[in-house]
């Protein structure tokens, strides 16, 4: 197991390197004319050129990348071109926001999908139809519309929750909960729609396995068969879906972050990429890769733990 984790971590490090290079290339090819963006469209060309030179943008891309890499491996990620803030600090203050969001969404999605999926898979009939309808609704409704409705209803009209902003977990726990609830709710809907279908399918598949019949024939009660055997065997596909969901969340959280005015890394990625603030985006890319590698690793270890066959393969 340790060997497996070590190998995966090494692969992750190579991945980090390759992706950092690819991203730097992708970010540098379109000439975003950062200097002009910084100085405003009315700036004189010589000033713009001077600004670009000051940022090192007059040098060839490989040289700039090598420079970035040399600093990055020493933990120096530079400062933002557009806000002057230290990149580590900038990402560090925003990461907890998105992390809270994602952990919340994963917990809610996992819990609710499990309940709904198992309910639908075991009960079938009307329960099954209801859960399928929920799934359809989750797919059919555009995410940002749902989010907007949620803000207007629960924050603006009812005033139950704040409409915007984020309170850190360390500042105030109730504050954190109240600022995170609506965003988590908005993001979870689509997740629940997808994962509950997956759980339902997996539960139905497992319920039809011969060994479930044999377990019944041994006189074990259905609840025990369900919780001990069915759920364990249905968990692997559900976990895989959940991990894919997580990767998707990194992208889709941007909508929710914008609408709720949350200073997270999702909206940061969009604003800073459109501007071409390379030091910040590179840091965001690194964070994303580390998160994805870590989550995939955790899920694979979990699946291995749940399913001995996957372990030995």
């Amino acid at each position, binding site marked *: 197991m340790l060997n497996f984790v070590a190998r995966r971590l090494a692969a992750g490090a190579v991945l980090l390197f390759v992706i950092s290079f690819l991203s730097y290339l992708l970010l540098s090819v379109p000439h975003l004319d950062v200097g002009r963006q910084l100085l405003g469209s009315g700036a004189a060309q010589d000033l713009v050129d001077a600004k670009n030179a000051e940022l090192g943008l007059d040098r060839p891309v490989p040289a700039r990348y090598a420079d970035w890499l040399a600093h990055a491996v020493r933990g120096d990620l530079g400062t933002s071109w557009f806000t002057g803030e230290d990149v580590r600090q900038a990402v560090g203050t925003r990461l907890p926001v998105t992390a809270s969001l994602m952990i919340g969404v994963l917990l809610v999605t996992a819990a609710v999908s499990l309940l709904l999926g198992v309910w639908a898979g075991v009960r079938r009939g009307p329960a099954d139809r209801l859960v399928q309808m929920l799934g359809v609704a989750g797919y059919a409704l555009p995410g940002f519309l749902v989010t907007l409705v949620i803000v207007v209803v629960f924050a603006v009209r009812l005033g139950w929750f704040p409409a915007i902003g984020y309170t850190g977990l360390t500042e105030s726990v109730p504050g954190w909960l109240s600022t995170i609830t609506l965003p988590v709710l908005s993001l979870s809907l689509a997740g629940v729609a997808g994962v509950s279908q997956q759980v339902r*399918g997996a539960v139905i598949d497992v319920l039809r396995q011969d060994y479930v019949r044999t377990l019944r024939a*041994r006189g*074990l009660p259905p609840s025990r068969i369900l919780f001990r055997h069915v759920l364990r065997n249905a968990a692997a596909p559900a976990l895989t879906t959940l991990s894919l969901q997580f990767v998707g969340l990194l992208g889709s959280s941007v909508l929710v972050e914008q609408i709720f005015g949350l200073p997270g890394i999702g909206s940061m990625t969009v604003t800073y990429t459109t501007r071409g603030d390379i030091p910040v985006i590179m840091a965001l890319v690194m964070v994303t890769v580390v998160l*994805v590698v870590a989550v995939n690793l955790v899920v694979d270890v979990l699946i291995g733990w749940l399913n001995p066959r996957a372990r030995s393969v």
Partner: protein
Amino acid sequence: MSETPPPAAARRSGAARRVLRNPLGLGSALVLAVIVAAVLLAPVLSPQDPDLASLRDSFGGPGPGHPLGLDSAGRDIASRLLYGGRATLGGAVLAVLVALAAGVPAGLLAGYRGGRVDAAANWVVNLVMALPAMVVLLACRAILGPTVWVLMVVLGLLVAPAFFRLVRGIVAGVRNELYVDAARVSGLSGTRIVARHVLVVVRGPIIIQTALVAGIAIGLQAGLEFLGIGSGSAPTWGAMLNEAFKNIQRAPGMIVWPGLALGLTNASLVLLAAALRDALEDRGTPPARRRPRPPKAAPPPGGEPGRAGLLSVRGLTVAYALADGRSKQVVHGVDLDVRAGEIVGLVGESGSGKTQTAFSILGILPEGGHVGAGSVTVEGLEIVGLPERAHRALRGNAVAYIPQEPMSNLDPSFTVGAQLMEPMRHRLGISRAEARRRALDLLRMVEITEPERVFGSYPHEISGGMAQRVLIAGAMSCDPGLLIADEPTTALDVMVQAEVLGLLRRLQRERGLGVLLVTHDLGVVADVCDRVAVMHDGRIVETDTAEQVLSDPRDPYTRRLLGAVLDHAPARAPWQPAAEETV
């Protein structure tokens, strides 16, 4: 399940028909067809050019020539909806095609070849998954231009890992199973088997995933428009939705049409995918009206003369609920008796209803199946109409079950030991240590030479014969009086078959068990059975001592059955797909 699926072609037409019989499947297919047709016919159906604008008339309501009104630029909403569907749906198709083309072949290859190919493919997939999607999208857009097609190609590449993972996982699983199969069925090349099986197994999930990816692509367009990462000036539903949102105070109604187009398309896609999956994988929602109440037990137990004390079945019928609400009877009035210390063979071809009879005695009929009428007594207790909880109390203790396919009847996630101990601890209420001691005893009893090692093994780590012994041990664990063995040796090779039969025989003698041996193999019957009941088409056609039936069969069907065995006399009966068991 263990059975080989029937040839794909035969099922495919059936699947299409099943989808269309499902009201949701038919409805969503119709809606999609209408949408696609309308979008394809946009030049014919559109009232005007989708880009023709007249700012003076903007935000105008429905009127002649403008059935849905005009948008913020004074363009005809109906025309834009129709033309917008081309870019939207075309984009989704493009994304799906790219994802399929990139993900499926790679998944097949990686799953089938395994090893280094697999490792390399996985690394690339991890790379794609870890790529920051937003950065890639924005960069490609900046380089290649802000069109819907660029966005969709990039999206297709980014979601290709989903297809890859899906296909690879399934193929790897099938490959492992089929190595066993391929060894069994000599003559067919492994590749051909895999290819045939893979197509069948992978098809369903891919179709579902395709529908979902199409939906995601359509939704993502809308999301990107909202973020200001639009697709240029070409009309798309996402752009229309965003435009409507930007003017929501001025013209709140404008959001309805693109929202509806988007929602309907996505909902239809998901519903159609669900219907297809249910049709292909045959796990549709059964009509599931309440399970019909079992009839009240007819005659008082034991009162009737001639009924055996251990197991007695009289007039048993079994029926299945069909999709259209009717029910179909598969067992029509079976009478059967098993006395203590006796082995009774229940013989018949596949589909004769023998397994259904066995399952109804155990009370483990699959979904949709139920006992229609008759009486079944176990140790004098009537079980027809018995509440589930009381019936469950009999299972394991009074009547135990040995299944046909050893590997698929052990839970792959638990060790042999855990699976042996669980019923004992639960049913007998004994301690962990005691259960462990007894489990090891049981393993010894079924002639397993290294009980400690097998105890700690997972099912995939032991052989089929070993697994069948474990299952027999499991059946014996709570000391039942009646054993129901459903083709216990069919899945084993000849040497092991004989050993397992010997073991069964020994246990039966030592413990004075009654055994109901369900089999199609007359050789087995000749070997071990005291009496035989021959079943055909859901009815018992002949019951007598084994000697009598084998030497002087009275029923023409029994004679045919015997004739077939004598003519071909295969070492082991060829395995046949059994519709009955796949239910």
